């Protein structure tokens, strides 16, 4: 009891010692042999700016406290001060490994608020870009996890694959990376035959390239020994702590929003939900590799079924008109002016829309007061909830397991810190 109180006091002492006074923390009991280590916001396990305070007994982790907030950019306040359209480029920077899926999640939430229904082509294109983003993100996740435990080659190979996907984004959206491709009511521009050709080439080569990565890692004795049994969390704890995405599926819970609460056209597409029972770091890695293969399957089906037609919904007072019509016709000019300056005209109400992004359930809650600016926009970021179980996963492990666990959770700090 007294030790617990002393622990509490020491924890807040450590946290208060952010101001360059780390070396001045005194441990009262000279026979105490636990050490507090600061795994500071800048460290090579390239998952961004996460600070971990770890209490160690020799090499065993006794307790861990993560500290977020080093990338807190004030997204929610920025959203309250701009129109709905102005927030779309900001959503790119949330989960910056798969930026397009954040765009899709946000405009789907706004479209739910407005009650707009999309044409089929727009839905299929959104599915295509979301699944490409999922593959790109899992490539980086697998590569970084492998690099963290020491297999540096895999990162360079996965980045080579990712460059092919970024080329497709370049041709489709104009930007490699932070694309801002979706608009409320549809997309920025249409899917072209050049993109189809590039995607088909990519899909042909992807199977072989992923097999190369798997040959290096999946049956590698060192990798398996490093990651097996590390970072275990029980399925009941996973549900209670709000874990979502591949982390939850690696605990055996088959929750996938594309299957459970289908959005876009996922209920027409055929794919499996991958689960594994072990719920350790290795299981999460295998789930991500398998999900990449499933995403490739979804991409093939969606490419085959891509319908023709318009790629924007027809709702003139809510959807931005095409630029060539804005410049030549009067009504579209007026609509464009009103939409850009005053914003869309939503009803009063609250909605929540979640999608299955590569990290978990990314959701936007919008509280609208009827004006063109949201009254409150809450981003339900999967990385925050995934990071909250870090103390449970790290307890009892060794120092060298910490990077494996963080790599397997795959947090993205832009999203966790909002």
């Amino acid at each position, binding site marked *: 009891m007294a030790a617990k109180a002393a622990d509490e006091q020491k924890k*807040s002492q450590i*946290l*208060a010692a*952010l101001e360059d006074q780390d070396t001045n923390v005194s441990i009262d009991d000279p026979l105490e042999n636990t050490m507090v280590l600061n795994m500071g916001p800048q460290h090579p396990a390239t998952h961004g700016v996460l600070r971990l305070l770890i209490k160690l007994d020799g090499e065993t982790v006794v307790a861990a406290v993560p500290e*977020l*907030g080093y990338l*807190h950019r*004030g997204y*929610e*306040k*920025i959203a309250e*001060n701009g129109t709905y359209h102005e927030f779309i480029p900001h959503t790119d920077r949330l989960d910056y490994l798969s930026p397009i899926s954040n765009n899709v999640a946000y405009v789907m939430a706004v479209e*739910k*608020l407005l*009650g707009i229904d999309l044409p089929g082509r727009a839905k299929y294109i959104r599915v295509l870009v979301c699944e490409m983003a999922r593959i790109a993100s899992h490539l980086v996740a697998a590569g970084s996890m492998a690099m963290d435990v020491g297999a540096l080659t895999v990162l360079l190979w996965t980045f080579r694959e990712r460059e092919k996907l970024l080329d497709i984004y370049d041709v489709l959206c104009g930007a490699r990376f932070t694309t801002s491709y979706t608009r409320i009511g549809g997309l920025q521009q249409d899917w072209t035959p050049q993109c189809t050709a590039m995607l088909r080439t990519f899909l042909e080569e992807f199977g072989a390239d992923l097999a190369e990565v798997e040959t290096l890692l999946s049956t590698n004795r060192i990798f398996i020994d490093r990651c097996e049994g590390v970072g275990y969390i029980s399925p009941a*704890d996973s*549900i*209670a*702590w*709000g874990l979502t995405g591949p982390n939850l599926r690696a605990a055996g*819970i088959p*929750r996938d929003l594309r299957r*459970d*609460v289908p959005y876009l056209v996922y209920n027409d597409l055929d794919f499996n939900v991958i689960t594994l029972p072990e719920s350790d770091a290795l299981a999460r890695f295998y789930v991500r590799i398998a999900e990449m293969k499933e995403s490739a399957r979804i991409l093939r089906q969606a490419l085959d079924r891509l319908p023709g037609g318009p790629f924007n919904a027809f709702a003139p007072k809510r959807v931005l008109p095409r630029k060539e019509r804005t410049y030549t016709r009067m009504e579209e000019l007026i609509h464009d002016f009103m939409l850009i300056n005053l914003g869309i005209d939503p009803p009063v*109400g*609250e*909605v*929540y829309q*979640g999608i299955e992004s590569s990290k978990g*359930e990314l*959701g936007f*809650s919008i*509280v609208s007061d009827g004006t063109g600016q949201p*009254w*409150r926009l*809450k981003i*339900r970021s999967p990385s*925050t*909830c995934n990071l*909250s179980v870090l103390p449970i996963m790290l307890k009892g492990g060794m120092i060298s397991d910490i990077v494996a666990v963080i790599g397997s959770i795959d947090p993205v700090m832009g999203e966790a*810190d*909002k």
Partner: protein
Amino acid sequence: MNDLIMRRLQEECAASIERTEEFRGDLTVTVKKEEIVRVCQFLNRDQELAFDMLIDLFGVDRYRPEARFEVVYNLYSLKNKKYLRLKVRVEEETPVVPTVTGVWPAANWHERETFDMFGLKFAGHPDLRRLYMPEEFEYYPLRKDFPLMGIPDSIPLPRR
């Protein structure tokens, strides 16, 4: 499904419910502040409803005189694959809400974030400190009276 939830809630906790709304297929139930833990425990343990995941918990600054803040709980049921939204109205004079970390441990960090951004305290929370802003920060950023660009020198910058 929404009717089933409404019926069961009316059977068990009719006294705690203030209002219900349905918008775009989602059900929103406004609950009295003191009863929120009881309602959450019922929703979590009930066999039919089984809301076992807390997806989101956040605050809203309505900036109205009668109840300035609102705390919104977004629940999900793995069995029924359904979302439910609970709301609690909080006055500005007594910004304290009972915590639901006993029902879902996921509420831990979400309540910390709500405290950080709005200043709403959660009674019974095991570790209520700021999540995003530095510890010494004195203001609550997402309140409507806090300016977008912040208060100058509220967080000190290192000298060049």
